[in-house]
């Protein structure tokens, strides 16, 4: 018996004290209805922002939203549907979105794509499909690594400051907070994005960790920039080549000629659609070849139209 165990006679005395139980009091007013969704037993996803056209503005979030859209089309009952709402990044304990609260009240976080072990688990959860092929793993990894890196670099470009803030800072906060505070938050976003580049460019992260960089911002090394864009171009060329081999389908499917959208389709779409929509005149947008552009439009039509 532990010394902290209450002796039985003492416990009996304690238990003999009656405890009258009253009904719980009402909760304070909530600001949005996400809590209501969870309280109704629905699975809920928190994302950075949802634009007026109803689409998420971050590739990770758009990818999850696409799967949710497909899933909700299949599940007619209200209780099986997944709800989605924009939220501050601070809703997630890991400071990254999307953040999923399952209907079992068990909380699950979708990590950034740079965490290589996570995409499989994520897709399993959302897709309810069989194991993906090894080729699919390789292609997804290409997007997760090199297209992602180029997306981050484009977001860090000072010319895209306003777009980056509209993507990663909650719209209500952008309206309410003064410019000085927004610039601090913007810098925090930069820092989180640069941390994602650490596996590829550790020296960049080291610089971002410096006190000076946190105050004054970051400047990207031109050699790194060139390398990032070269690799993104190579990555997109791979998918252009793949699509050219299967022009009739216009999608990858399960890479074996299936007609259903596959994991690779959703993942590539989540980047190319946002690049062409949000930064159409950027260097990255100019790298997207014609068939990949057509693929993006095709997938959008299949999911959201």
């Amino acid at each position, binding site marked *: 018996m532990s010394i902290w165990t209450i002796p039985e006679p003492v416990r009996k005395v304690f238990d003999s004290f009656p405890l009258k139980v009253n009904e719980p009091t009402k909760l304070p007013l909530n600001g949005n209805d996400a809590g209501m969704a969870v309280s109704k037993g629905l699975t809920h996803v928190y994302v950075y922002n949802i634009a007026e056209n109803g689409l998420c503005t971050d590739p990770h979030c758009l990818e999850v939203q696409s799967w949710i859209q497909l899933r909700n089309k299949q599940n007619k009952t209200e209780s099986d549907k997944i709800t989605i709402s924009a939220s501050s990044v601070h809703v997630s304990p890991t400071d990254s979105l999307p953040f999923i609260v399952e209907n079992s009240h068990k909380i699950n976080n979708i990590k950034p794509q740079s965490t290589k072990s996570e995409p499989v688990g994520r897709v399993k959860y959302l897709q309810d499909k069989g194991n993906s092929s090894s080729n699919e793993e390789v292609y997804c990894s290409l997007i997760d690594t090199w297209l992602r890196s180029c997306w981050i670099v484009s977001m860090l470009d000072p010319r895209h400051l306003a777009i980056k803030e509209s993507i990663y800072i909650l719209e209500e906060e952008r309206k309410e907070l*003064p410019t000085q505070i927004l610039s601090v938050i913007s810098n925090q976003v930069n820092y989180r994005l640069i941390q994602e580049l650490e596996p590829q460019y550790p020296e960049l992260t080291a610089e971002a960790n410096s006190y000076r960089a946190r105050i004054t911002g970051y400047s990207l090394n031109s050699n790194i920039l060139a390398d990032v864009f070269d690799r993104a171009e190579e990555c997109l060329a791979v998918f252009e080549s793949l699509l050219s081999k299967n022009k009739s389908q216009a999608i990858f499917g399960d890479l074996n000629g299936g007609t259903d959208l596959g994991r690779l389709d959703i993942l590539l779409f989540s980047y190319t659609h946002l690049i062409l929509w949000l930064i159409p005149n950027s260097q990255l947008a100019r790298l997207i070849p014609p068939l990949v552009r057509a693929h993006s439009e095709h997938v959008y039509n299949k999911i959201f139209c």
Partner: protein
Amino acid sequence: MIHTSGPKAETAVDREAPEFPPAQSTDEDSYFKHNDEPSYLASLQVQVAEFIKIHKDRKIALVTSGGTTVPLENNTVRFIDNFSAGTRGSTSAEYFLEAGYAVIFLHRQFSLLPYSRHYSHSTNCFLDYMVEGNDNHSVQVDKKYEEQMLQVLKKYQYAKRNKLLLLVPFTTVNQYLFTLRMISQELGQQKAQNRSTTLFYLAAAVSDFFLPRSRVADHKIQSQGTGKLVVDLDPVPKFLKRLVDEWTPGAMIVSFKLETDSSLLIGKARGALERYSHQLGKKGDEVDQAEIERQVKAAVAAKEYFSELLERNASRHVQVRAIRAVGGGARSTRREFLNQQFEPIFQARNLSSLLSAVDTVYDNLAGLGIYENVTVALDETKEKVNGNGVRGLDNLDPFAGLFGNDSGRAYDNNERRNSGSKLELDAVVKLAQAKRFYAKTGTDLGNGEGNGYANMTFKNIFGGAEILSLDATMGTRTRSSYIANFSTPVLSVLPPQWRLETVAYMTSRTIPWASNEQLVRGMSTKIKSVPSLLKRPGQTPSPQQELGFEAVWRTIACSPGASSSVRDEAGNSLKASIFHSIAYDTRDSILLATHGNYYKFSHELAGLGGIGNAFYKTSFESQHNWLLFASPPTTSSSSSEPSTISSQQTTEPVSRTSLHIGTKAGLLWMLARPSSNSDTPPPSNLMDRFYLGGPNDVRGFYSSGIGPRDQSDSLGGEALLAAGVSLLTPIPKIKRTTPLRFHTFLNAGNLLALDRIGSSTTTAPTTSSILSSTAAELLNTPSISTGVGLLYCHPAARFELNITFPLIARRNEATRKGIQFGVGLSFL
């Protein structure tokens, strides 16, 4: 007469031994903690309390007399003794009694006593005063001594009849110190409203060294072995500073300095006077009766003379011509700043207002926190000041110039009316500079968390009492905190008792009861009143106030497992508010009050300039304390215990049982934005709401465990009401002076979210209906707990170990049945 016990002067005192500094509180606390109090102290306390009560309207003198012993063995055979027959003390006590004082005579047992000292066994053997009667069967007083004896007898009987003398014995230095403290504290408490009628005349020869209990041999130290006895003695802490400052503040103190070398005497006596702030003190190597009488009369006369003169000359015209500031503090402070501080003295036009102004200036200067010591002296313009700017104490006749005419005699009313003269004075203000920079690191424990901190403070930066303080803290709940605080008086705008304070801060705290982490960066500017350092008898303290503006940027970040309600609140928000608080505190102690009340009223109006959500928040808290009687009356008859010269020994009860009642209330009222089309106000922020429950308020619940909760997260509430009753009783066989008590309590509290929408779909509830329904629910459905425990008051914090029993709780509230531990400064 041959004295066999007189030491050789040239070898009796070690000239090279350093003077011990005044005791710090830890010295005293440590001494009383590690040494046993005398077993008879409790019954003695009863007698002392009764004596003081009888004479509460009379002047009381505590006279200490005789030497103390330092036992070397528990079953004492050997001890070290301070030689003193008690002549000075016993003689002085007689003069005090003649002067109308009631006297507590704390004396070495078997030393000379007042009145009987005239006929002691050794010097004036009482048998020499007797002769056989003519019938050879009776004893008569020798005719030649009859008149003298009759006078002594009359005085003795007068004192006995009127119970004017209480004899309190001691033998060891330990008994002396415990008894002195007890009597001082009783005098301090019972004569709290009029401490100026208390006089300490400390004539006992107290040992400077003692042997701690842990090193005292149980049995007789054997003389075999090396044949040498080496004794390692510790210094006795100097208690006089505590006596002056805390035990009986406001009392007059007369202490004595023994030196066998007359060249050292004046300097050391003056040093002791300055160190302990005593009024008189000098002691030579010869006990001279005439000198004793002079000293006693001087002490008595000085006090009465001063009071009387003040009264008689209160309206006398005086004008301070110049003020001279001396000392390191004066050199480091800007001249114009000091001039502003001294302005009240220059404005005084009569003696009464001048003395009041001196008090005010002293209070203001001492309250700045940049001087270690402040003294203000007044002198006639024509007189010279010595080298350090303060009049010589050896020539002190302070009243002749201020109150007297040219012959040094005091003005009476007629003279003052007729003279019409104006006395010109100079003031000398001595400002001892406190350290202008210091850095410290340490740990804090309290209110349920532990912290490590580093602090740097810069004082008097620009010579205008500016203080800059930089703090960095890391702890169990406060993950990090950085605070820069700059405060300064603004004499051109604010009265001297107010300071302007600007604080910039960034804190990050983990909130375990709501699964989130809160990061707050902001700044506040406020004016605040500085509490007065002068505790004038009978004067109630002035309320403390703050008025300021605060602007903060707040971030709530969810921890893993946060409920949906907490997730809804995640993110950034702003707050801009003005706030005001007023507190009134008459308690005798913050941690363990036995009397006095505390009230605090705060309010805050947020949403200024359209920044952040608008709300009005108000809160009130109070505490009321009473000392109750508990101990039954006792009777003392032991010959070893003290006794009054009276036949009646029945006493009133003396108690340490106290009752405490605390209350808390609060309301957070969200206001609709003027720019908004909706009448419905926005939701309140998690960080603005009230929280309730835990060992520091409603015990029997976990911290913030009362009120609205989503899963295991406490969301806080917008309406708060709580109350607690605590009964503290002494523990048998534990020293009364030990701050350890039995604790019995009953706590109740309720915390609600305001229902601003209501159940009706057509009409929104009115403000009055919301408030009345909330008030009704607050009163009708409180969560209640009770329990017992132990309470210990350390100087740094109060510790409670309670067994708690929740009696009423809401279904999802976090109750704590069983042992609950609390540390903090503030409890319900």
